[in-house]
């Protein structure tokens, strides 16, 4: 499966840790330098879950529902493949950059 840049970043963030949606949005803003709305985040995670790339766990806190996300083994594998693909693409771009 091909990952979009947003999906790739989200999977990267939850590759090692199980994180709540709000925490993912915060890390995304810090690491990617752009804000990600909660709607986009949760719908992207729904798609990733549908493809078996992440697992969701629901919990509750004093404000209501909290959804925790974590990449599955399949998700990590796809992430590695996409990483290699992006690296190859970047190398191609660097090699063919005008002097």
């Amino acid at each position, binding site marked *: 499966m091909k990952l979009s840049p947003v999906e790739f970043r989200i999977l990267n963030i939850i590759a090692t840790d199980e994180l709540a949606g709000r925490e993912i949005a915060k890390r995304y803003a810090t690491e990617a330098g752009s804000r990600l709305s*909660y*709607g*986009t985040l949760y719908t992207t995670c729904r798609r990733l879950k549908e493809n078996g790339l992440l697992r969701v766990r629901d919990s509750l*806190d004093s404000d209501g529902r*909290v959804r925790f996300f974590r990449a599955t083994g399949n998700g990590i594998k796809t992430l590695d493949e996409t990483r290699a693909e992006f690296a190859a693409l970047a190398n191609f771009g660097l090699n063919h950059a005008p002097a």
Partner: protein
Amino acid sequence: MHPHRHSITPKQRELAQKLVAAKAAVWWAYRKKLRDAEEFLELLAEGRLSCNDPNELAELDDMERQVREFTAEIGGIQSKIEGEVGHLVDFNALDPDFDILVFADLPPPPLPLRLLSGFRWFCGKEHRANVEAIIADLVKDARTMNADGHGKTFVSLALAWRSVAGGILPIVCDGFRRLKCASLIAAFLYYARWVLRKLL
């Protein structure tokens, strides 16, 4: 247990807030162990951990006893906290069909969140859960903005923007994408042509 409305003193509210936070902290601190314990008990119930060796069997029994004691201890702490603040905090409101209102005497949630809360009834199961999570996240955001000293109007506008542009819109778009946009556009064109034929 339903809390008594309009009967919370600031001190009680503070205590309740601390205890609810403690309840969440207990769960957070032991979440991995609790999950492992649940998995272990599930495997045991399914009979996937059975063995014939008496020594192993005794060890398994001992492990089961320890796991049950551990889950009972954590459950005990959580229920004790619920018992202490049950008359102040509506724990039923935290069920999957929860409302945003947690404290009995809190004013109703801001309009954008009520709008979002109403929107969830038009969504499927998965998106309903997502909307509920978005509401909880926005409540936290609103609290952070209030703590940062932003004005009421600013917070309301920010919540409205985040609810509509950052909540409802992406979910509606996702819904369209799931419905396969192409067939939707084809249906629209078909009816548009039919209407045009009738008119002209």
